[in-house]
């Protein structure tokens, strides 16, 4: 799955506005110095980084909502200064003794400033208290291993115990292969926590961002009372290349996009990044318990 994602985005996004033969498409890696220009992986248009940032990292040309860090997501989503992080210091062990997994993690922790691929905590959106879960694709493509599973489960359990809504921004390449079966079990663990939150009659909004795939699509991401997606992002279960291998033909560019999922009935709405906070705030208001919250 992971292996697929990079190429998937490249293939799909490059494919759209190009009718060049395959051979020419392949060597289109940006040669542009990083930090000055953003080259959209979807439409290949080039934007000054400054303008791109001002547009909250949405391609001004094609509206592709590119990947942002969990910190950036929090910044544009929750009330200033309201985020209280949970379990910041949790790091993974190496459950199946996968060669060099510890080393890889150590290096990534230093590089990204994250301890794993998800941030969880308590925050407010327009004054409404929520539990927020934000995955970060910069850390091993936000694959779900022990830490991701445990932090998400604890956050949802906290929400259930304190009768709070959960907002989860999902992004993931799927299971964390390096943790083997333990990674698969995190699907059950997180979905179990959602089940209890659900039975308690509480609101869970899942916001699918680029890319939401594999074991995360097949667990808590698909279990929201309300499922929102950002425009043009990748959402699916199986890897595109795996499917192409099975059917022996190329898939249309919009296969497994947010729009494809909406059309097939697996997403409630597509919401642009600049409107996301407002939409979530309204939805929270509509779901507010009548007699005031029990805190």
């Amino acid at each position, binding site marked *: *799955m*992971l*292996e697929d994602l990079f190429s998937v985005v490249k293939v799909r996004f490059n494919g759209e506005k190009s009718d060049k033969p395959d051979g020419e498409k392949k060597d289109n890696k940006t040669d542009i110095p990083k930090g000055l220009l953003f080259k959209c992986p979807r439409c290949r248009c080039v934007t000054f980084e400054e303008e791109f940032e001002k547009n909250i990292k949405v391609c001004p040309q094609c509206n592709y909502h590119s990947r942002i860090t969990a910190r950036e997501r929090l910044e544009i989503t929750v009330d200033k200064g309201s985020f209280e*992080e*949970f*379990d*910041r*210091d*949790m*790091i*993974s*062990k190496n*459950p*199946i003794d*996968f060669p060099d997994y510890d080393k890889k993690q150590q290096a990534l922790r230093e590089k990204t400033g994250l301890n794993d691929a998800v941030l*969880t905590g308590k925050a407010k959106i327009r004054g409404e208290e929520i539990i927020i879960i934000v995955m970060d694709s910069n850390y091993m493509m936000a694959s779900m291993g*022990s*830490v991701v599973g*445990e932090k998400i489960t*604890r956050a949802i*359990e906290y929400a259930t115990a304190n009768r709070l809504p959960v907002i989860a921004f999902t992004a993931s390449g799927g*299971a964390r*292969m*390096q*943790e*083997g*079966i*333990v*990674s*698969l*079990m*995190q*699907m*059950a*663990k997180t*979905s*179990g926590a959602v*089940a*209890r939150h659900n*039975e308690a009659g509480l609101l869970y909004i899942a916001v699918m961002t680029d890319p939401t795939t594999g*074991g995360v*699509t*097949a*667990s808590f*991401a*698909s*279990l929201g009372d309300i499922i929102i997606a950002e425009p043009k992002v990748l959402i*699916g*279960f*199986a*890897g595109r290349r*795996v*499917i192409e291998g*099975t*059917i022996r033909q190329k*898939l249309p560019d919009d*296969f*497994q996009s947010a729009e494809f999922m909406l059309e*097939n009935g*697996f997403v409630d709405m597509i919401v642009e990044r600049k409107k996301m906070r407002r939409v979530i705030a309204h939805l929270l208001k509509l779901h507010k318990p009548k007699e005031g919250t029990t805190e």
Partner: protein
Amino acid sequence: MSELTACERLDIIRHKGRPTALDYIPMIFDEFFEMHGDRLYGDDHAIMGGVASFKGIPVTVIAEVKGRNLAENQKCNFGMPHPEGYRKALRLAKQAEKFHRPVICLVDTAGAFCGVEAEQRGQGEAIARNIMEFMTLRTPVISIILGEGGSGGALALAVCDELAMLENASYTVISPRGFASILWKDSSREREACNVMKSTAEELTRLKVCDYIIAEADGGAHNDPQLTAENISDYISGALERKLQKGLDELIKGRYNKFRVVGEFEELPHSDNGSGLVPDEDVSEV
């Protein structure tokens, strides 16, 4: 218990004569009535479900079906279910809950099918829904992995009170081939992957995933399907006895905690900014 490597076991579970759910169901259950369809889209032959009697106890049986020859395999899509298969399973599980019947799941799949229509019909959602609904299903659920337990496609029928594995069965996050392809960019290193993945019943017992190991005939179940079926049958008797005496609330809590405790992490010092929540029940006894 034989001392075989994961790789040697893989050869056994891929043996042409390996018994499948189609062989075991008539040997283990009486009066099996197959029920068809998910009431939403269609009937998936990769998952077979129905009502049966197990030593006089009414049970619901849900099984992933691998074919024993090409014709059977074409019908059951080589044991790789589509979303409607998982939705049929959920429908039958809900029916079991209504009529207070235990659910016996027989897991045997390389994985959920990866295809265009499977995506269109929500493969991810179907698996997710099963996992969530089985977690709170108010009746005992016993899952047995017969051969391959591949990824989310297996987990969708393996959220249970007890997970048993046949001695040579495997349970993996992805097929060994896929594992090698993703991590080493070389799918030909399948056999090596197999030994790295920790996929055998014994290893999975250590990882708190597998609860019971069911012995197969010497050299593998294909050498004596009847004996293996008897071993499965004995296991089911014991498991039902253990689970039927529990209250439903206790059962559901135990099921939650069975999965809740899986994961290996550490918390560095000064981690008291955490939510402070740990599983609320006694997790040592599952």
